[in-house]
């Protein structure tokens, strides 16, 4: 029996490694020769990396029941989507971009009780504006409000990525395909963002896209090295009908550091993802350039274990961004207390009790 530690702290949502095989088909896109590719230098023309991330938070959950016994659900939440703007060559200081919190009052469209959103939401004492923008979610699940906030956050994140990213020509040979700006998106790339220079960065390896015959290469990658680029179709379940029309993705793996002996050999490996054009059997020059520079870039941004529990996958700018976003949302305790006192004042003791 072999015993290995999952590299990530126990209080994160998932372990880093829960490899479930990918049901669909995965194609070699770059080469048929399955071997490690050495990292290349970051070209001088790439002058801007935008690390984009988002953060949701629930601040209070509401249970509303009216005299007729109807039950409804709502929740106060907040989210931020922001970015860190940095130069991969270190020519200037990294800076935070658009880190501003938005507050949401998500309420269910079902249930008997009518939700008076304007009464429920505290207002800004200075401007009189609603602090919490009302959003409706469907269904009556307890987690509905939370997933609504999460959804809004992801949308904001995708919108920000889309706004910041430059266009990526999907040509096979164009030597100038690499743009000067690259967006590094936390998590897989989003549906609908094709044609832009957005690189998805997946920290947790849930799905095994490689299969038993190829996964061995990951264990032998040296820091900075990558696997060849592969192509797959999102949500491919193996049956031809289900996945038809879905978007395609390029993906490859990069190792950020050698794993300590007590961890899984795949610790320190991340999966990267980019949009792939429909029905293409080649890897566009821009994608290849990004794949080639990804090793150097990510090793440069990788964090150290004594500073970040999720090192090296949690990148230095990402951790700073997360911290800044948490700060932008304000103290959760204070916010909850303010909501509580608002409700008590607005609705009276009878309504709240």
């Amino acid at each position, binding site marked *: 029996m072999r015993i290995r530690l999952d590299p990530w702290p126990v209080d994160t949502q998932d372990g880093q490694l829960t490899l479930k095989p990918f049901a669909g088909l995965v194609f070699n896109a770059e080469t048929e020769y399955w071997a490690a590719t050495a990292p290349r230098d970051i070209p001088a023309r790439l002058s801007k990396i935008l690390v984009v991330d988002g953060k949701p938070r629930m601040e209070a959950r509401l249970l509303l029941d009216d005299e007729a016994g109807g039950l409804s659900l709502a929740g106060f939440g907040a989210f931020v989507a922001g970015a*860190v*703007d*940095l*130069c991969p*060559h*270190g*020519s*200037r*200081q*990294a*800076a*935070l971009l658009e880190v501003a919190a938005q507050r949401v009052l998500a309420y269910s469209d079902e249930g008997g009780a009518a939700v008076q959103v304007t009464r429920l939401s505290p207002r800004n004492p200075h401007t009189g504006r609603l602090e919490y923008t009302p959003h409706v979610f469907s269904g009556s699940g307890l987690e509905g409000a939370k997933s609504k906030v999460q959804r809004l956050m992801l949308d904001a994140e995708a919108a920000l990525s889309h706004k910041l990213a430059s266009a990526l020509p999907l040509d096979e040979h164009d030597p100038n395909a690499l743009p000067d700006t690259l967006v590094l998106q936390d998590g897989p790339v989003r549906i609908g963002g094709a044609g832009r220079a957005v690189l998805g960065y997946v920290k947790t390896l849930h799905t095994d896209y490689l299969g038993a015959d190829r996964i061995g290469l990951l264990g032998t990658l040296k820091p900075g090295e990558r696997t060849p680029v592969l192509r797959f179709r999102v949500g491919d379940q193996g049956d031809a009908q289900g996945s038809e029309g879905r978007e395609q993705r390029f993906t490859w793996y990069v190792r950020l550091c050698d794993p300590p002996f007590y961890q899984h050999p795949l610790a320190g490996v991340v999966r990267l993802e980019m949009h792939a054009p429909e029905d293409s059997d080649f890897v566009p020059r821009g994608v290849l350039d990004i794949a080639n520079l990804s090793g150097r870039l990510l090793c*440069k*941004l990788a964090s150290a274990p*004594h*500073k970040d529990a999720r090192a090296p996958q949690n990148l*230095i*700018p990402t951790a*700073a*961004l997360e*911290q*800044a976003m948490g700060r932008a949302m304000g103290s959760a305790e204070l916010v909850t207390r303010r909501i509580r006192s608002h409700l008590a004042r607005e609705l009276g003791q009878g309504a709240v009790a």
Partner: protein
Amino acid sequence: MTGTPAGTSAARIGMVLGTEDVMPTVFWFAVSAGASVQLDDLVVVETLRPDGRPVRFYGLVDNVRKRHEGVTFESDVEDVVAGILPASVSYAARVLVTRVDPENFIPPQPGDTVRHARGDDLNMALSADKMGQASFPGGLLADGQPLPLNFRFVNGESGGHINISGISGVATKTSYALFLLHSIFRSGVMDRVAQESGGRMAGSSGGRAIIFNVKGEDLLFLDKPNRKVADKESEAGVSKGFAGDRYALLGLPMTPFRDTQFLAPPRPGAPGSAIVPHTDQRSEGITPFIFTLREFCAGRLLQYVFSDAGSSLNLGFVIGNIEEKLFRLAGAQQSKGTGLMVEDWQVDLSESPPEDLEFGDLGGVNLRTFDQLISYVEFKLLEDRDGEGDPKWVLKQAPGTLRAFTRRLRGVQKHLTPLIRGDLTEAEAARYRPNLLSGAQLSVVDIHNLSGPAQMFVVGVLLRQVFDHKEKYGRQDTVFVVLDELNKYAPRDDGSPIKDILLEIAERGRSLGIILIGAQQTASEVERRIVSNAAIRVVGRLDLAEAERPEYRFLPQSFRARAGILQPGTMLVSQPDVPNPVLVNYPFPAWATRGDEVDDLGGRDVVEVGDDWLR
């Protein structure tokens, strides 16, 4: 309120921080982007009370710091500089409040605007408005504005005495003491205060200073212009970014001291030899000073011969007794002259009588040297009546004590013989009598060539004379006494007659108009009451271990740390009106401090002067 309305003068340099405790006496502020705040900057903050009335806080920046904000680890600086970690630099300054006006000790509000104190605000911060006519410049602040000192805390009216600490060489204690004297005499503050007092004080015409020169011949050229001063001052003006030379900024003339006299002990030589001052670099314009044997006895000066009189009770008793006997002896003198005629010395009974005795007409002996006086005392104590001594002199003291007494006298004989003479004529005695209070305004007494016991003797005797004089005539004319090396003259642990005088000056001198400008390397080793009586305390470069001693607790911690790195020409000045010390620099001396600094060209070209010589 005398301050200007908020915000009209200086631009905003920051905001009071909310992440550090804000207190009425100390607070931090975040420095605005583009502003520069350094240590010792004077700032003002206005806050509003709940009833809408403003309260203004005046203070002094005593700490400034920058740090990365939003990062956790020290090595994060590498990531920040490499451009992969976003962080901002926080620049904050700590203010020690010197004044709250009106005196509502509420804390300022985080977010209150901080401005540089200029103009009236500056006067408020340094309490110059309270000083009125009594302010005189005590040096320049970092931005070239003069620091006002309150003369009423110098001349004894509200407080008195100045104490300066610092290690020798770099602390420039004496230079600063001289600068203060220059400022007091030439800024006109004495006249202004005299005018305000309605003629009860004499102003600068009545002010006098006595300086004891204890090291080198630094102070023997105070009346000569310094040829380096113009260059040094223009250099300093450029490097510090001042608008002009520092004398002009202070409103003081760039000239040497006027109305000076220089006293030096006579060169040791055979009795009766010519009396010339014992100095090396300068001989003209220096008056030798000598005490006559008769004055020595009549003035009860014997006690100042013994610096360790307190070490033995019996010895002190003998000294007091002999002093009394000598006093009577002097009182009984019939003839004029400076020696002492004694009738009862049977010279033939003495073991080793001095050879050059002068016998009087009636068989008496005329004592003319200190040596002879000691021989006479030895005779009276140990040799008279077959070794029993004169019972009136011995007063049943054990022979051992008496021998200890004469042994000590013999020990200092060599040092005091040139200073105490009985062979002068009355006219000579008058000429060489040290005349500190009716001669020039500034008297320099050079004692650096004297041995330790002789220095103690001279300082003790002269201070006693000043003290006696002032006790008789009162405090109208302030006398400043500048004395370095208080460690030696008033040590904390031992008693000595000179320490008694210094203590008297420190404790009573203020009401008599004797102001001690004392200096020492280590205040911790000086009698506590002398240091604690000084209203104005100054610290130059200090040894860091010394700076942590309780004597320097009047300095806040940050100032104590800085006292270890002060440069020559920079001092920390603490005065009663301002609760925190202030860092000042003061100008290069306009008077020569060495023979080769003397500007003997009189402002003319070297060639021109040379031509004059050749003509």
